[in-house]
């Protein structure tokens, strides 16, 4: 029985997908985004828990009355790093009639036939994808996350082709991701996709700072301010979100 490397579980997830959700934070992420608020999920070998899919689902289904309006969300970290385990988890969830949501950057997506096959299997048991697009500009994306943005954008197009319900999430960091051209480009890109049910602008925040201190990593965004509601409104406008979305 394969075991997933898990960081933690949030049993009352209200901001990680629709309704009340059982949120599983996967350990391990290949990216190193400067604004990450979960640096303690980066190293896959540092997993606090190793659990089977059955164990995880049992913890959820024993309290299933709470999750009638929601379901299960896989996030982290980057759940795709453990795509086989993730797929098993979602397969079993679907069999139990549970709504599945994947929160990911899509960074491991490739058109290689083996990898694509795995993605297809995974997506066949995923009801909703929350895709985190970090930056539209390839160079800025590299500076921000240590990786190029080809895979996430390819993944977005692929999801559109499949017609998979998707929500786009974009973290707004003043001075890093709030460039007028970049926001406009994001809006244009999103409009080329057919399957987007919601676009969310998430304000950068500093709640993760204490985690960096605990890990003895210098905080990458020291001194960067938190966006105001005016900043958020401007971003939404440039992207082209009206609040009835």
């Amino acid at each position: 029985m394969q075991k997933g490397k898990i960081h933690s579980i949030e049993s009352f997830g209200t901001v990680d997908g629709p309704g009340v959700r059982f949120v599983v934070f996967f350990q391990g992420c290949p990216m190193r985004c400067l604004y990450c608020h979960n640096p303690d999920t980066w190293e896959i070998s540092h997993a606090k828990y190793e659990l089977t899919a059955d164990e995880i689902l049992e913890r959820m289904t024993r309290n299933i009355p709470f999750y009638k309006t929601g379901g299960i969300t896989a996030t982290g970290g980057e759940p795709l790093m453990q795509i086989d385990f993730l797929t098993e988890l979602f397969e079993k969830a679907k069999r139990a009639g549970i709504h599945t949501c994947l929160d990911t950057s899509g960074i491991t997506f490739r058109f290689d036939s083996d990898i694509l096959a795995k993605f297809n299997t995974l997506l066949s048991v995923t009801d909703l994808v929350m895709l985190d697009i970090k930056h539209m500009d390839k160079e800025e994306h590299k500076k921000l996350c240590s990786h190029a943005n080809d895979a996430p954008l390819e993944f977005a197009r692929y999801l559109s082709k499949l017609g998979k319900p998707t929500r786009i999430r974009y973290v707004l960091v003043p001075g890093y991701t709030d460039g007028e051209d970049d926001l406009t480009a994001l809006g244009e890109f999103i409009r080329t996709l057919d399957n987007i049910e919601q676009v969310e602008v998430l304000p950068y925040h500093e709640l993760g700072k204490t985690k960096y201190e605990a890990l003895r990593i210098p905080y990458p965004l020291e001194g960067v301010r938190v966006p105001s509601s005016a900043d958020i409104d401007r971003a939404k406008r440039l992207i082209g979100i009206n609040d009835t979305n």
Partner: protein
Amino acid sequence: MREEWTGFKEGRWVHEINVRSFIHKNYTPYYGSEDFLEGPTEDTTELWQKVSELMKEEIAAGGALDMDTKTVSTITSHGAAYINKDKEKIVGLQTDKPLKRALMPAGGIRMAVKACRDHGYEVDPEIVDFFTEHRKTHNAGVFDAYTPEMRKCRTNHIITGLPDAYGRGRIIGDYRRVALYGVDKLIEDKQFQKDTTVSTMSLEVIREREELSEQIRALEMLKKLAEIYGCDISKPATTLREATQALYFAYLAAVKEQNGAAMSLGRTSTFLDIYAERDLKAGVITEKEVQEIIDQFVMKLRMVRFARTPDYDQIFAGDPTWVTESIGGLDTDGKPLVTKMSFRYLNTLNNIGAAPEPNLTVLWSEHLPENFKKFCAKISIEHHAVQYENDDLMRPVHGDDYAIACCVSSMRVGKEMQFFGARANLAKCLLYAINGGVDEISGQQVGPEYRAVTGDYLDYEDVMKKYRDMMRWLARVYVNALNIIHYMHDKYSYERLQMALHDRDVKRWFATGIAGLSVVADSLSAIKYAKVRVIRNENGIASDYVVEGDFPKFGNDDDRVDSIAKEVLHTFISYLRENAAYRNGEITTSILTITSNVTYGKNTGSTPDGRKAGEPFAPGANPMHGRDENGAVASLASVSKLPFTDSQDGISNTFTIVPSALGKTDDERENNLVALLDGYTAKRGFHLNVNVFDKELLLDAQKHPELYPQLTIRVSGYAVNFIKLTKAQQDEVISRTFHSAL
């Protein structure tokens, strides 16, 4: 049928005193939204402004605006008094001035003197003399009968909060009867009961005859009370205003004679809606006027005050009265008892601001109308002054006309009463088991001299065995102390008015309580799954503990420790039930502390779970602060495992959340809160106190209490004005687990 009942559907209630039948036949369930609700009238707003100013003055005066020192309070001891006679639609005050606290020595004269003195008032020496030499009080009687062992238990805080120095409360008169039948009919009914007592004068019959006589006397005085205010309540009410006024007079009469810790209101909203509907249909009242009557009725309920000693305030912080109103629920056919009045009562929080009283309690079921559920969630998020209890758990036990007394204690209205028993400190009991009955703080031998734990490490089987023995001893002392208390209270401070509004044959619940359950569960878990080393002081008493290793903690939906909590509860209630209870009371227990979890913690030494001496317990059945690490559902799931059958007097759970952790939009937040409540009740969770606000707000209120006279939060089964808490209590609330979204 009487002409006052024109428009009502007949039923058994016409031929016998049966309010439940009246409600069942006549109420109109409401499935619509809150759009019909109206705001306050000018009169209401002006009155509330005046009352708010008086409340501010009250705080500035140190907690009591004024106190009676010469008039012993009875139903008819005071003349009519008003806030503003021309504007009040519902009249009646406890004394001759708003917020003035009455003198009620029958519970205990020393307490009455202390309460006054603490606020700078001196009780008339003639009265002090009279209640010391000539008219014995409840408190004097109890202390005549207490054993030295019981006294030691009290002073060492292994049982505290006992109602031996204040009114026991936990009796809900069926005040609705006065509105529905009029006092004359009720007197006639009680007279019939007296005329038909058995003719052989056994002790029970003698007492019954005396009690009935007192009840009849009280009813006569109730009529007089109304007359003092120029009202006639001898006949059934004919309008909503008359019904509300009559109901309030009955309640007022109760709080003029008794200062019970909990003077709860009952289940009045669906009842009054019947009158509102009749008036609205007849076109004699507008919706705005209906709301006005309710706003002003509630305003009066918020003004109830009692003279309390500083000791009392330590245990029951914030000046509580527990005027608990139970709203909603389903009837035994599964039909919602939600009416427009259910909305109107909650709407008072919008119209005259949030307040801890009346203690608005929603009897929740998944099958309540969706619109009502969402409205409740909205009110909770805006005003955090509502608590929720599981109707699906209580309905099979009590039917559909029960109400909550105090915070979590259910009983059928007018048919049952509770012998309130405060609580036993199960955490300290565990320490006694480890120390052979010696108190870890005073060093006194309080419990029996059983063998103490020897050795440096605690062994689970050894500790459990000793703990069981110690619990058995504690249960015996506790029940017997309560037997004394309730005998004396019946003898020296009988609640004649409230009992006049009960049936002849009353079921008595003997309501004990437990404090420190989560401390105990975690302690035993640490002993079982980790290693706990004992540190002894210079007298050889175990006074501190060092935990080596990790262990599962209560509040994480982990059966390994949750089962320990269940087992301890089950064991203790079984031991309690081994004892005979006064007047054939049926023994129940609650897991409820109000704010006494702070006091209990102060008086309990370090415990094997790592908690240090003096640190507060968690309130009620909550997991200990900061130990629930898997989110709110896991925390609630742990608490839901505690069976209602073992803790029928109630299981209290306070839940605090930051708004952003409930969802991103108002709509999402309301839906998620409803989903949480639905899930919790489906899992057989019993009670939820809901606080939804930011830590910053609380911190600010602590610094600037004057800006938040009405900031209401819920504390362990009860909502209290934050600024009325002591600093220690405030700090404790702030450190309570906040479930924030990261």
